[in-house]
């Protein structure tokens, strides 16, 4: 009778794959395939290469798995790889501008913590996302997808995007404002 892997954490599975049990990588992929497809599809809204990008994320994750530190979250590590792949795709396609210089990340901002308002607005924002996500710049689109759809914390988003935690708050606020303004225009 085969081992039940459903009770094993992502980090334990990843450690076993690192040790040579490559078959368990399938279990990890099965856990994350729907999440990656959703995240990449939302981040690369309107792009055709979502499935290619998702496959490339899993290939890259396997290739670099020895880099993964099992004391940290596998989920954030995988989202970070997906983030890089999406950014590379946007750069390759040259359909949208990506900021080379981001003033939001330079100076400290007071908005650093998750607020009850973030949660209270969840339903409204999710509706707005469905209607107007395409109108957002990638730098605002990604945090709003990670926070409201993928339900990542500010700290996790900071780790995935490699930006200050306070900047996550600033971008989420601006993204909500842009979505609301776009909804009013419509």
């Amino acid at each position: 009778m085969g081992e039940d892997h459903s009770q094993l954490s992502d980090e334990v599975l990843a450690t076993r794959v690192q040790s040579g049990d490559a078959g368990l990588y399938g279990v990890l992929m099965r856990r994350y395939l729907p999440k990656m497809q959703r995240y990449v599809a939302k981040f690369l809204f309107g792009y055709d290469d979502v499935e290619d990008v998702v496959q490339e994320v899993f290939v890259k994750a396997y290739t670099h798995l020895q880099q993964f530190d099992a004391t940290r979250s596998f989920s954030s590590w995988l989202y970070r790889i997906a983030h890089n792949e999406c950014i590379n795709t946007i750069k390759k396609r040259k359909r949208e501008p990506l900021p080379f210089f981001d003033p939001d990340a330079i100076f400290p901002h007071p908005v650093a913590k998750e607020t009850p308002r973030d949660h209270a607005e969840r339903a409204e924002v999710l509706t707005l996302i469905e209607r107007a996500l395409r109108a957002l710049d990638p730098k605002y689109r990604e945090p709003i997808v990670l926070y409201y759809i993928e339900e990542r914390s500010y700290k996790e988003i900071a780790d995935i995007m490699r930006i200050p935690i306070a900047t996550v708050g600033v971008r989420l606020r601006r993204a909500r404002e842009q979505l609301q303004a776009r909804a009013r225009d419509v």
Partner: protein
Amino acid sequence: MTPSRDPIAHIIAQIERGEITMRSKVRILAGTALVACAAAVVFVLSLYLISASVFTLRMSGVALFLSFGLRGVAAFLASFPWVLTGISLVLLVVLVRMVRLLPFAYRRSIVYSALAAIGVSATLGLVVEQTPLHAALNNRADTGVLRIVKPLYRQQRVQQVRHAYVGTVERVDAGVIELRTSAGIVRLGTDASTQYPKGPAVAPGQRVLILGDNRSGGLYARGIETIEDPAVFFAATLAPER
């Protein structure tokens, strides 16, 4: 890459066929070690250049130009070691970018990483400047042993400013001061408008910085300041070991 109907089965099959392989831990560690070494080299190089900039400023007396009025300010700007400072700043930017790869750095705003990098480099740079390192290298450059660093310690930088001279006082007579510079002997007139350094009177053997004016009657010293001699500084800092 063409996605299959079942991407998971497709990737697993590629892994089994050996088409996708996991990079070894040794290779990853080697990469990390390489980045760490590069960061250390950038850090040491920026410390060296920052301390060399301060050393050059101190030994050439360029900062003393600021006490000679507006023309002194212009002379200061013209003689400032811009290239050294520019390279140091570029290295600091590279250093900040490297530091930003670390979680404790990227979770906070860039201004903190930049201030920390500048603060640590500037403080350690000033400490290094107080050691005999630059005086020794300057000495070797002067004696031709270490020609490669000669441009870094070029003391004649201020000679590029019109009527500015750095040299050793040869003779002080009534109304005339004679100076031995790297370009030869220079004689400048002095009068009531000449600004002398505070403290003891200028005497032969002293190393000085002079900003002159070309008046109808010849070359006159507008301001004189005494500066440190790298050779004396070198001898003094190494004296306890002798």
